[in-house]
Structures are given as C-alpha cells and as structure tokens.
C-alpha cells in the first residue's frame, strides 16, 4: 500500500509570481481561504520580466512537472512594461520548448492582479489539474536529479 502511494508521486509545480500583482493576488487567495493544491510552490520575483529561461529549464531539470509565470495584467506592470517583455520572451521560449516536443501544457503564463485572489486560486487549480492529467515530466528531466 505504501509502495503504491510512493509511486504515485504528486506533481510539482513552480510558480513565479511578480511582487506587485500576482504575489499579492496569491496573498489575497490565502486571506480569502481560496485553496489550491499544495504542489504549487511560489517563488517571488520583482517582475515577471525577471524570470530567466534558465530558471524555467532548471525547474524542469530538477523535477518540476509544470512551470507557470504570473504577472500583472498587460498595461498594469508596476515597471510599466516588464510584462510586455515577458509576453514576448516566453512566447518564443514556450514555442521553442514545444518545438523540442515538450508538452505545451507544461508551461503557462497568466496575468493575475492583486485583486484577483479568486483568479489566482482558479488558475492554480486548473494548472495543477492539467499537469496531473499530463503526468510526470519525462521529456525535460535530468535523471540524476530524480530519486
């Protein structure tokens, strides 16, 4: 019984959240008690444009099954244009990853404002569901990093 449970590993999701909107949105989800799966772990960045493709690749390497970026809505960036840059950079990165055969569902961008606690929770629930259905990340993993 324990063996089975151990084998059915829960997926791991890394969420990069910008300090000004999405991290605050996550806080609001928390204070509104809007739950989302515990497999979602948040890393705070000043702006979504701080997220280097290397961070995302590293997460997959280390065993993440999905990576999601959250930023302010286009037009609302605290730094006025950071999320526009993110949108381009990640458009090209995600497309390239998919070109290499990495499932396109494993990467996502969502715009979540500080007022959208409900959206944050809904997005994370949905993303976790998608990743759960997709199963473990096999195409961009580093076996040395797996137990």
């Amino acid at each position: 019984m324990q063996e089975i449970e151990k084998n059915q590993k829960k997926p791991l999701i890394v969420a990069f959240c910008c300090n000004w909107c999405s991290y605050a949105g996550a806080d609001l989800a928390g204070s509104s008690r809007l739950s989302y799966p515990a497999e979602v772990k948040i890393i705070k960045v000043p702006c979504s444009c701080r997220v280097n493709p290397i961070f995302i690749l590293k997460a997959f390497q280390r065993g993440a099954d999905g990576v999601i970026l959250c930023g302010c809505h286009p037009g609302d960036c605290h730094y006025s244009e950071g999320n526009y840059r993110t949108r381009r950079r990640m458009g090209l990165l995600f497309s390239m990853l998919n070109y290499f055969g990495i499932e396109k569902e494993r990467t996502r961008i969502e715009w979540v404002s500080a007022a959208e606690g409900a959206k944050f929770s809904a997005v994370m629930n949905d993303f976790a569901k998608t990743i759960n259905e997709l199963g473990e990340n096999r195409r961009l993993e580093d076996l040395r990093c797996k137990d």
Partner: protein
Amino acid sequence: MQGLEKLMLEKANALLQSGEVDRVIGWKKGESYYDVSPATFTKDNLEGFVYNCFCGANLSKYLVAESKKEGKMLVFLKPCDTYSFNQLLSEHRIEKEKFYVVGVGCNGHLDMNKVYAQGVEGILSMSEDENNLIVETVYGQKIVEKESALLIKCLTCKSKEFAVADETLVVGEMKPANPNRFEEVEKLESMTEAERYAFWKEQLSKCIRCNACRNACPACTCINCVFDNNASGISAKANADEFEEKLFHIIRAYHVAGRCTDCGECSRVCPQNIPLHLINRKVIKDINENYGDYQAGAEVNARNPLVNYTKADVEAKEVVEGGNK
C-alpha cells in the same frame, strides 16, 4: 570564381599598397583545393589567398578580435556575412572605422562531404567553372555539378543583398535567394509533440559538446560563456545527461534569439551534422509570424524584437499554438 578571386587579390594589393588598410582577412588555401580556412594577410604576404567554391566560412566572427587591434583591415564579406557584420556593429562588438568592407559575389558554396558522397575518390586536383566542380582523380576526370553539393546554408540562402559594403565585387549575375527557407521548420511543426521529441532526441544525442557551433557563431561573442562560467548555475563541459544535450542547445538558441542572422555557420561546422540551424530558424519564424518580419543585421542599430514589444502582442500561448497549425 577565378575571375572574382583575381579582382579580390588586386583590390587587396591596391588597398595595402596605398596604406588604406593594414591587414586583410580572407580565405587561405591549405593542402588541397577544398582545404580552405579563414586567414589574415599583410602587405608582404598575400601568399595562398583564395576565393573558391569552398569559401563558405563567415569571416565576421573573427572581426571581434581584429577590431581590438591597431590599424584598419580589409574584409571580404559574402552577402549573408554582411548581416552578421551589421549585427556585430549594432552590439558594439566591432567598430566600423576599423574595417573596409568589400562585398563579394556568391553563388553558394560547397560541402565537401556531399562531393565525397557522389563517389569521388583519389583526388589529385580540382578546378571549377560557373556551374561545375572539375575533379581530377586517379580514376580520371569527374564533373560534380555545384548545385548538387551546396552547403545546407546555401540551399536555403536568405539573401543576395549586401547589408553593408564600402564597395562590392561581383562577376556576372548572382543566383536569387531561396524564398522557402522555413520549409523544414514547417515540416517539424506539423509533427506531433511525440514525433518532434523523438526527432530532437535522436539529433541531439549525437552532440559531443565540441562547441564548434558556439565558436563559429557570430552572435556567440561573450567574454565568458555561461556554460563555462561556474557562477551561472548551468556551466558544464560535457553532456552528462540527455537533459544537458537539450539545455545547451535551447539556451544557445535563446541566447542568439533576435540576434541570429541565420548565417547557418552552426550547422556547417557541426561535425555530427546536427541540423542546428533548424532551432534558430524556428525562432526567426516565430518572430516573423508573431511580432512582424525581422531580419537581424539588415540595419545597424535596429531594435531586436526581443528588446521590443507592442501592447497588442499576442499571448505566449498563441505563439505556441500558431506554430502547430
């Protein structure tokens, strides 16, 4: 080609004699006709200067180091190489004042492996005319059609325009560029994710991490490459794992995204024949389709699409979906 080589040699001599330039960078003949490598020449030593159908190498990359030296240099650039030159200018990696650019005509260069593949053996000597490579072998004369042995990068030639040149030397008409350079990318895009994964897994498993692609790439001019820099968190000298095969090429393609001129040197120099240009070209295609047509190096100081944005840009998801149509 011989006619052009003569003109180039004359030009080099004239500029060196007049003191307009101090050095020349071009191609130098080695042991045999097809053994050609980039080299620098001075006033007293133009020995071995050559321009033949094996001069596919892009000389731009060498200019980063040359730009640091005293004096002015004459550089011969084929149309596709001129884009790299402009891109390096935009990125302040070279100074225009240090170079006298002579654009030279080009009808595509050859891949010696493709010549061998046609059963050419026991080579004694070679010569060429407009359309053919004439090989004298121990078995007799062998004619190889140039069209049949073009480098990958020449098969999908992007341009016959000189993006920059102080003057040009062209003999006859240049053959037009190939408008369908994204065909192979489209083929990959039309595959399923699993098929693409299998394709790249097979291709990239061949990678021996020799760094030839990085060393030949005119956009790879970092002082300390992230893969050599322990502080970067991703440094590695060899592909210890399947992940690292991918990581290296994804990061490299992303590193040059928006800056890659599609010169095709990466694929040309790959000893394992990995179609690396298909990675960069995917990015170029995505840029063109989603953010407007852009050719890196077409203009000096143009804003690279990755440092640009518009408020109406499509969402990332649509870029991914767009390629899978």
